[in-house]
């Protein structure tokens, strides 16, 4: 490259920049300011940017090898159980929270500081370049890689100066028409036009890098205004959008949890279809849809559907379908026949055929507190081992089995307990297992006695009157996730901007073009030369094109075109 990259300010170790002068390297003493300046220059150099990028790539990898708290909290717990010795070590290295760890943060923060340090001066420089003239025509165009020479005769009756000036005029007009910015530099016996195009390339580059900063800020700040909450709804149940009604709620830093959009939502019906036996993919469930009715404070009632890939928009929130399952309705009466428990209990699916596990807790109304651990099989079958299993997800032969424990549920001391688990330590098993009494086993509509004359238990049949088979006999639940995400649109906006910038930065050719005419007695020597600024595989063709377009305007007879002898392009 014959010219320093003056039009574009790039880091000093950019491939196109002039090599560093000896002074830079050998400076013996630096003051504090000198060191700071040196450090800043290092940080904003291409090499540092590159090393930081590669470090970022490497640093991201462990997060895919070790389970992450953010994506897979159960996996982390499991990892601690499986690797009790290794896990604490990894924990100290933040390997379960890679993407919020100090070392990962350090890398990307340095990278972005470097990026800003890179982009700001370049923006200033580019701003100036955008408003200045293309630079003076180099004295010796022949030194450029892409260079063509044409000698044309001066027709009789004209003088060489006029022909040369006219030729450059035409060239300038043609270049301007092709989108070049042009400037005339005539003098010292030559006429020339200097032209430059493709400022959009550098603009695109700057927009791209700046938009990356935008993405990072949008993610960081937007996260503070974002909340997500989870709620399990059984068919027929409703919930109101307030902190109290969520089973879990994760607000960003700036979210006022007491001022959520006020609305309520009822799950009217949950739809699911199964591929019947004998067809490819049989047993596979699909077409999940939670049919809900929302009620806004102004009394507006609206029906909607929450489906996979199709969240429902409600008052600026988006409602997602996370999961679903069966919620058997169970009624328990004590020995006096009083109802002590009646509820539809969400059972968590354990396998693809919806074998489901759930817990029932009876705190009051019995001589002792009761805890029941239940398995629900929508289509029960018996394995050769005698164990029960479900062979199909739909309600073909629904069976509920329950083990019963009596004693202290441990819920009175205020310790929070999950509604999905029961810790039977300290309780006596009175049905199932080694208790001597078999586990309870019920189908919808059946009632059985509890052991020890404690009362009765009923597995309610929820099917509407006149239903056939077991269709609809057990209610379903939907697990919904409610999000407010203010970051999303901004992130998308910046990402789109980045892509557009990238397209311009990578594919708009930036180049300079010169056409110079030198009168030489009875002929005029025309020189054409191009210089790429950055990647430009089509430069040679572009120079040829300029020559071709220019040729018809030149005096015709006897003109000969000599290819540049120095290089094969």
């Amino acid at each position, binding site marked *: 490259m014959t010219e320093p990259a003056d039009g574009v300010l790039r880091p000093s170790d950019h491939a196109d920049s002039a090599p560093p002068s000896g002074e830079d390297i050998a400076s013996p003493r630096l003051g504090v300011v000198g060191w700071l300046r040196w450090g800043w220059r290092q940080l904003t150099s291409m*090499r540092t940017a590159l090393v930081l990028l590669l470090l970022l790539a490497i640093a991201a*990898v462990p997060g895919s090898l070790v389970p992450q708290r953010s994506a897979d909290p159960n996996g982390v717990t499991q990892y601690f159980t499986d690797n009790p010795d290794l896990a604490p070590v990894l924990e100290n290295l933040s390997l379960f929270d890679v993407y919020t760890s100090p070392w990962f943060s350090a890398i990307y923060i340095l990278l972005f500081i470097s990026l800003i340090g890179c982009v700001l001066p370049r923006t200033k420089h580019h701003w100036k370049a955008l408003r200045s003239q293309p630079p003076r025509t180099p004295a010796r165009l022949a030194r450029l890689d892409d260079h063509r020479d044409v000698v044309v005769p001066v027709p009789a009756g004209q003088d060489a100066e006029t022909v040369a000036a006219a030729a450059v005029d035409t060239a300038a007009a043609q270049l301007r028409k092709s989108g070049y910015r042009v400037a005339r530099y005539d003098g010292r016996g030559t006429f020339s036009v200097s032209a430059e195009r493709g400022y959009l390339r550098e603009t695109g580059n700057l927009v791209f890098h700046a938009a990356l900063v935008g993405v990072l800020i949008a993610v960081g700040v937007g996260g503070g205004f974002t909340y997500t909450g989870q709620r399990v709804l059984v068919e027929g149940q409703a919930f109101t959008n307030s902190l109290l009604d969520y089973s879990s709620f994760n607000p960003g830093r700036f979210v006022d949890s007491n001022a959520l959009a006020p609305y309520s939502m009822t799950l009217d019906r949950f739809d699911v279809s199964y591929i019947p036996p004998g067809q490819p*993919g049989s047993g596979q469930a699909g077409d999940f849809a939670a049919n809900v009715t929302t009620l806004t404070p102004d009394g507006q009632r609206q029906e909607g559907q929450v*489906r996979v*890939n199709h969240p429902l928009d409600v008052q600026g929130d988006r409602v997602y379908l996370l999961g679903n399952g069966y919620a058997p309705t169970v009624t328990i009466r004590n020995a006096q026949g009083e109802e002590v428990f009646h509820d539809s209990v969400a059972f968590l699916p354990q396998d693809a055929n919806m074998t489901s596990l759930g817990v029932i807790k009876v705190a009051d109304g019995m001589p002792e507190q009761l805890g029941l651990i239940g398995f629900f099989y929508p289509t029960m079958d018996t394995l050769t081992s005698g164990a029960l299993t479900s062979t199909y997800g739909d309600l073909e032969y629904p069976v509920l089995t329950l083990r019963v424990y009596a004693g202290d549920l441990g819920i009175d001391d205020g310790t929070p307990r999950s509604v999905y688990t029961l810790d039977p330590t300290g309780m006596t098993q009175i049905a199932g297992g080694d208790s001597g009494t078999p586990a309870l086993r019920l189908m919808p509509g059946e009632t059985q006695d509890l052991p020890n004359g404690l009362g009765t238990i009923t597995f309610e049949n929820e099917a509407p009157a006149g239903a056939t088979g077991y269709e609809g006999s057990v209610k379903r639940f939907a697990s919904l996730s409610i999000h407010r995400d203010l970051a999303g649109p901004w992130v998308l906006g910046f990402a789109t901007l980045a892509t557009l910038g*990238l397209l311009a930065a990578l594919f708009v050719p930036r180049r300079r073009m010169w056409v110079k005419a030198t009168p030489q007695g009875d002929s005029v020597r025309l020189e054409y030369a191009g210089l790429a600024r950055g990647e430009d595989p089509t430069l040679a063709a572009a120079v040829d094109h300029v020559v071709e377009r220019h040729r018809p305007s030149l005096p015709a007879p006897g003109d000969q075109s000599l290819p540049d002898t120095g290089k094969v392009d």
Partner: protein
Amino acid sequence: MPGTDPLLLDEISLLLVWTAVAIYVLAFIAYAIDLARRSDLAIKAKDEVVARELVTAGGGGVIDASPRSSASGATPARPRYLWARMGTALVALGFLFHLAATVLRGIAAERVPWSNMYEFALTGVLLVVAVYLVVLTRFDLRFLGSLISGLAVVLLGGATLAFHVDVVPLADPLKSVWLVIHVFVASLATALFALAFGLSVMQLLQARRERKLAVAAASPDAAAPRRSFLQTLPNADALESLAYRFAIVGFIFWTFTLIAGSIWANDAWGRFWGFDTKEVWTFVIWVLYAGYIHARATRGWRGTRSAWLSIIGFAAVLFNFTIVNVFFKGLHAYSGLTS
């Protein structure tokens, strides 16, 4: 096609896949023979040129038929590589069978044929071959033929053996337009990265040869490098520029893949980014190629080092497609291989 048994269609499709694989094997062999014979051809061509130059020396004409390559990546006076032509013809034929197989699979499944590992491979490799064939109309990249056809054989054959599953209806999370866009664009990016990868490998070989040539030229005692097909290839710089051009187009597609994936994730899972394993690897690949682009612009990194980054980038792409899909736990459990 209502009334047609999807299993039967899939069986025919499989038959076509194996036919395609067999043809790709033949193409690979033809291309390999081509490479093996190229050095001889190059020498012969040179001798002929010398002979012709002697003949025409009196006339003062200049014949630019030296096998030295030009920066645009095409050899100026193309020697007639018969075996390479055969290889290309075979790849084109294999492609037709492959295309038919893929379309048939789509018809059998009544949806786009890229919804599980087997189908990703089917469509992905199809796009690699398609991009290669399209690019051949502009650049003479037949020296990559053995690599591309070899890749096609290994990936397509391997995927069919290891990943083939019967047609089943789509799981709910996959019923999305974003499946169509996201996966297709990702495959396209992969195809372009594959070409860049091949060119970077050639670049490394060529650079090594050029270094040896330089040494040999400098000292008379050093042995000249052995003759090889590399003589007939563009020089290392030209290979690098060409690799870069494919890589940046691939990079744009990959950027789009990343964004489209985020939009889909936001619809399906309620967050656009969660560092799920597949997301991590897509990100890692993106950053690696960003690094590659920077490396090419950094003094001291241009050339061999940047070529290595392109190779590592493509290794990550392959890793992401195979190992991550099959063995890593995550939300992207769409290999179709479990349950």
